[in-house]
């Protein structure tokens, strides 16, 4: 059998792509894909990767001050996982034809964003627990449906990430439980931390559906599986009984069970605040970016030394071959 190496017309390629997505099959790197799909995915995966990398900072702040060796080891492992998540995701983005250097540059130059939640400070040690419980909890809600996303490498990265996120959420919850069994002062610390992180956690799902213009196309492409409001509702419903078990109050006077809907009713976060944080005016935006840039610059000599070492070995190998 012979095959002609002629490119099929674009309409046929588009039809094949649409059929693959409609069958919930996966698109793989070497498949034809619409330019918009490629671009949207690169941005989505890259911003997700940047979030994992910047997300190391708020908790990293407490590694040196963790109250015991056990807590320090746990926190180190958690923060190291987040670095790993960033690397899985950068690799997935690179399969779409963008280079690692470009991706790093997009973050460092501020041309691409990361999740708004990491622009809030970690003022007390209880924040380590609250972030694990609420922030990683919200991330899990967002990420579990992405394990079935239409782009193969992205879905595979998400499966790996979701497995590890479960440890993140549980260690946070256990930390808070331990503090809630402690002194009145410790309990107050937990409540104060939950009060600060509750609304920013709800914002992690993005703006309300009627103000989320790109969602429809992303849903059609299978790179988004649930709407922002659906996921937010799911998160609230999951979290309420956990808060009860913990003995903390979620700071929303409108929060109550709605028998008719079979869901909790809840208040809306301050969307103007989300817009401000995304625009760069959150409490820690400048600090996070400055720290990331400095870490990148401080690590330059390590990368250069490794490259020089590799080049020298390569030269020695080539020379040895020449002598034979």
């Amino acid at each position, binding site marked *: 059998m012979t095959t002609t190496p002629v490119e099929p017309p674009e309409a046929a390629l588009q039809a094949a792509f649409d059929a693959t997505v409609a069958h919930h099959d996966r698109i793989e790197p070497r*498949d034809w894909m619409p330019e918009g799909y490629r671009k949207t995915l690169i941005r989505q995966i890259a911003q997700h990767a940047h979030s994992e990398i910047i997300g190391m900072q708020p908790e990293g702040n407490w590694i040196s001050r963790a109250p015991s060796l056990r807590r320090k080891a746990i926190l180190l492992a958690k923060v190291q*996982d987040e670095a790993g998540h960033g690397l*899985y995701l950068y690799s997935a983005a690179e399969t779409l034809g963008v280079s690692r*250097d470009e991706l790093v540059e997009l973050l460092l130059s501020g041309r691409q964003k990361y999740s708004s939640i990491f622009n809030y400070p970690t003022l007390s040690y209880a924040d380590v627990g609250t972030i694990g419980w609420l922030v990683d909890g919200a991330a899990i809600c967002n990420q579990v449906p992405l394990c079935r996303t239409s782009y193969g490498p992205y879905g595979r990265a998400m499966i790996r990430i979701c497995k590890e996120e479960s440890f993140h959420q549980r260690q946070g919850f256990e930390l808070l439980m331990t503090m809630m069994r402690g002194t009145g002062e410790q309990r107050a610390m937990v409540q104060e931390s939950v009060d600060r992180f509750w609304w920013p956690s709800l914002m992690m799902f993005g703006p309300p559906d009627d103000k989320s213009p790109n969602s429809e196309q992303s849903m059609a492409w299978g790179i988004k599986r649930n709407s922002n409001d659906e996921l937010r509702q799911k998160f609230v419903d999951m979290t309420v009984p956990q808060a009860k078990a913990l003995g903390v109050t979620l700071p929303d006077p409108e929060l109550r069970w709605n028998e008719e809907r079979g869901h909790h009713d809840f208040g809306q976060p301050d969307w103007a605040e989300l817009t401000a944080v995304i625009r760069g005016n959150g409490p820690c935006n400048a600090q996070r970016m400055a720290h990331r840039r400095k870490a990148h610059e401080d690590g330059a000599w390590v990368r250069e030394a490794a490259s020089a070492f590799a080049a020298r070995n390569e030269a020695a190998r080539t020379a040895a071959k020449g002598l034979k």
Partner: protein
Amino acid sequence: MKRDWPLYEVFIRGKRGLNHVHVGSLHAPDDAFAVAHARDVYTRRNEGVSIWVVRADAITASSPDEKDPLFAPSGDKVYRHPTFYEIPADVPHM
């Protein structure tokens, strides 16, 4: 911007008796670093007992897309599968 480190594909043997399976990729300046990085990135929870790394540009793949006519010849050879053959249910060990 300076050149990226080469891309390596990473394969891990989960435990003795299993094949190495592709788990993802990473950048490293050379082969030895690639193994070290693969350990840190892909085996933080006993996921493996052995790691292979290979430079992505050393891999030869079947065709530019995943719907390869190369595989068409095997599509219509149902007789290569045991279920093609009807054997009476009372014949043992078949």
